[in-house]
């Protein structure tokens, strides 16, 4: 087997320097992807048409299952391509040396989209599509509940949307993480960013376990409004559901990527596939209504349907933010963990406190009482509190607690995630409960 490997890699390196032509392609390609059938089917068909000798196997695994699969089978890898939305998934594989470098040179594709680099600067993965986060809603639901459609993130903290909103957790979905990080990097910064997120989260009906759970919930009408990535909204609409989608002002437009797995058995075909995805031909497939993803090749928008968003032209999408990728990466697990402790696992407490505060504020609007006003303000301060300051979030020793993966036996980490989380949890739960008590006191005063 070793000999086989040596020969294979020698052959591969020889082929690498030779110009690529259909003749030298291996006749098989195994793609691990989390993308839906509508998307993979179209790309498989188009690629096999272009290279009739190649048979493409699209192996669907959830993003996390895909990572685990590649990690666990690395000694005997049979897969060539990893193709998902979440940029952080590629970072995990890159850190584990499970990807190989391939710089696909494709004419007309810019270096960055907004401030986000379209491909990994080191060449381990390349962008193939762009996506931005936004708000989708169910028209029938909003009509029945007599609610206006929200336009900005801030609208979502309005009391009228109490328990009408759904979102996925950043620890579950890399793209949701980017939305949260975008809000934390908006002009208001860490502290006020968390405040905005929590005011909005007080109105959540649910934090879903899968990112697809959000469009699913809006489509069925189990909740009316969802914070989703654009193609979920656009493709749901294209499938006939009574839903709509909009981009708020502060949204990051980020690339969906593709990478070639280290030791890929069909490396030439894999490279051809990456080139194909980024070519004009591949990019135009993204425009199919059931797929509805944003091409990263500006030229591809020429064939786009009317009203199709174009981040390269439309300055309202993702231009108002300077996204710092390094910053996001340094506190990645910390932000996810904070969100889960403060929101995902304590949603019921947060909901109750928010409800009491909404009621108190409503009473206050018709009945001015300074003591009640003070109570309400104090209660909001308690809800807004975040157990971690921005300085602490930037402290490497502290964030190291959340990167429990030790590369060497001698690596030492101080403190355990469970310990820290338990401390936060106690603090957060107390704050929510106290806030509720204060709000109820205010209600008593105002009644």
């Amino acid at each position, binding site marked *: 087997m070793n000999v086989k490997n040596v020969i294979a890699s020698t052959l591969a390196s020889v082929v690498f320097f030779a110009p690529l032509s259909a003749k030298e392609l291996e006749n098989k390609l195994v793609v691990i992807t989390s993308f839906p059938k509508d998307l993979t089917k179209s790309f498989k068909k188009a690629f096999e048409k272009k290279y009739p000798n190649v048979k493409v196997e699209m192996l*669907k695994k959830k993003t996390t299952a895909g990572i685990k699969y590649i990690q666990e*089978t690395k000694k005997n890898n049979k897969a060539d391509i990893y193709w998902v939305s979440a940029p952080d998934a590629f970072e995990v594989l890159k850190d584990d040396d499970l990807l190989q470098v391939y710089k696909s040179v494709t004419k007309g594709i810019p270096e960055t989209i907004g401030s986000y680099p379209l491909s990994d600067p080191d060449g381990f993965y390349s962008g193939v599509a762009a996506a931005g986060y936004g708000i989708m809603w169910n028209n029938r639901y909003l009509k029945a509940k007599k609610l206006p459609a929200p336009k900005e993130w801030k609208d979502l903290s309005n009391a009228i949307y109490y328990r009408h909103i759904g979102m996925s957790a950043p620890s579950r979905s890399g793209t949701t993480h980017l939305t949260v990080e975008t809000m934390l990097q908006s002009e208001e910064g860490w502290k006020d960013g968390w405040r905005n997120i929590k005011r909005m989260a007080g109105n959540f009906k649910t934090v879903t376990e899968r990112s697809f759970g959000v469009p699913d919930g809006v489509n*069925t009408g189990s909740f009316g409004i969802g914070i989703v990535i654009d193609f979920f909204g656009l493709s749901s609409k294209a499938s*006939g559901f009574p839903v709509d989608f909009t981009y708020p002002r502060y949204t990051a437009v980020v690339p969906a990527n593709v990478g070639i797995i280290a030791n890929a058995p069909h490396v030439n075909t894999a490279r051809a596939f990456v080139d194909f995805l980024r070519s004009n031909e591949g990019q135009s497939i993204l425009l199919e209504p059931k797929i509805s993803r944003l091409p990263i090749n500006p030229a591809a928008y020429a064939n786009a349907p009317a009203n199709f968003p174009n981040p390269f032209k439309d300055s309202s999408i993702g231009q108002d933010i300077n996204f710092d990728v390094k910053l996001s990466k340094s506190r990645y697990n910390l932000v996810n963990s904070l969100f889960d402790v403060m929101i995902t696992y304590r949603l019921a407490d947060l909901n109750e406190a928010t409800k009491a505060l909404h009621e108190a504020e409503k009473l206050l609007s018709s009945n001015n009482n300074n003591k009640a006003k003070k109570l309400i303000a104090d209660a909001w301060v308690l809800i807004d509190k975040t157990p971690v300051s921005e300085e602490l979030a930037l402290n490497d020793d502290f964030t190291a607690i959340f990167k429990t993966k030790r590369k060497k036996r001698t690596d030492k*980490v101080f403190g355990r995630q469970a*310990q820290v989380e338990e401390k936060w*949890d106690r603090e957060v739960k107390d704050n929510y409960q106290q806030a509720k008590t204060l709000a109820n006191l205010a209600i008593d005063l105002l009644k």
Partner: protein
Amino acid sequence: MAKNGTLGEKGLFLIIALFLLVFLVGPVIQVFYVAFVDVNTGSLSLINFVDFFNTSLFMESFYNSFYVASMSVVVASIIALPLAYYTSRFDFKGSVIIQSLGFIPLIMPPFVGAVAMQLFFGENGSVNLFLEDTLGFKIPFMDGLNGVIFVQSIHYFPFILLNLSAALNNIDRSMEESAQNLGSSGFGLFRKIVFPLAMPGYIAGAVLVFIKVFDDLGTPLLLNVNNMLAPQAYLRISSIGIDDPMGYVIAVVLVVFSLGALGIAGWALKGKDYSTTQKGGGGLNKRKMTRLEALGAYSIVIFTLLIVLSPHFALTLLSFATVWSYSIFPDAYTTAHYAEVFTETPEFITNTLIYASGAAVMDIILGVSIAYLVIRSKIKIRKTLDYVAMSALAVPGLVLAIGYLRTFSDVELPNGQMLASWWLMLVIALAVRRLPYALRACTAAMQQVSVSLEEASENLGASKFKTMRKITIPLMAGGILAGFVTSFATAAVELSATIMLISSESDAPLAYGIYIFMQSASGRGAGAALGIIAVIIVALGTYVSYRFMEKSRKQREVESKDE
């Protein structure tokens, strides 16, 4: 008989122990290992368990899981008891319906089932929209812990129904007749004689419901209830890039606690003999119902079935619906989803049949063998087999699958495929995951077979093997069938291990196909259609096995009357 078991028994013990070691214990330990490592120093320690008990969120989750599991047993018993009572006490035409439809709730394909339940019972589902339109209020069926109890009870009550009916059908008529001769009748008879004799079956079912609900993560996740143990474990194990050991710690706690529950159940049945020496024609005296009784029985049965089968009605509607969103019924109907499913995915169906029946056959072979060793042999550590096999119930599918990849991915088949993702490994994984169902059913059935019948057979010169084949297994047929059906039905819709292990689409079963469809807004109808196909396949499979059992039972009755 040797004091520590005969040679044959020891051999059987070794084979089964080896199987469990290679395909359950080994892979799982490879994954669970991190639970016992201190992340700060990398040395072995129990510090993570200290953290577990110090974390209020986990303690709260622990309590919630316990509460939900206990209440689900209560509610599931309330559903199952009348159904089991009618089928075994009366000559009741509805029995066939109960027997063939009663297990259908177990076949709830992942994702589609969730969507269908929301569409029907969710806060803005059909039932609540209708209630709001007409009566102006809503019922929170699917809300919080009570929602979990509601869904779990209608999902898992068949465990009690199947095992209890099997046990009731195994009680010797003469027991009942003796009681009647002594003046007992009616409910008193049922309470004092019939129910106690059927206790092993009831406990087997109740324990399964308890452990299954305690360890289940699908339902809490679909209802977005995070504060329970299994979802906490899953959420922590499957987030991107974090290697937080707590997920594995919780998984270890789940295993230990489930085994504890099993131990308590075993202790409750200890020291009592449930076997009766049957003279053939097992099953209670069935009497005809009066018209009024029949009316009552039918209304209860039909009402129960309407509730427990409603997810499947919703699924059927969804599979024919164009768009169904925030309305009592879909906007319009179409057969396009079925057309799509049939043109694209023929191999899903054959794969499912092969995998699920392969796993179920493996399960009853293992189940009967383990039950035999535990109940009949004298091997000292025989009970460990039972506990090890049952621990599979508490091991998340994801953990088992990661363990398989870790253990078997280096090994290659002659054709260059890796062993871990060979389809037969998937069958074994399914068999290991569903073994507890078959094992409980087989154990309960064997507890009811009197050892004196076997001794008589051996005294007449039959070998142990022949006795097993000719006497014990036929008497256990009902329980074995119950085990086969539960293993088969639930293996057919298993997803968590499947999606991890599958390495090519041509090897994929239905559940994987459903998953693929359900990843996009446009695939909902097609996913539901595939879900309905899964339900029909499993229902047919079960109906056939049921007819087969009835036939052989009748045959036995005829034979015994001839003697």
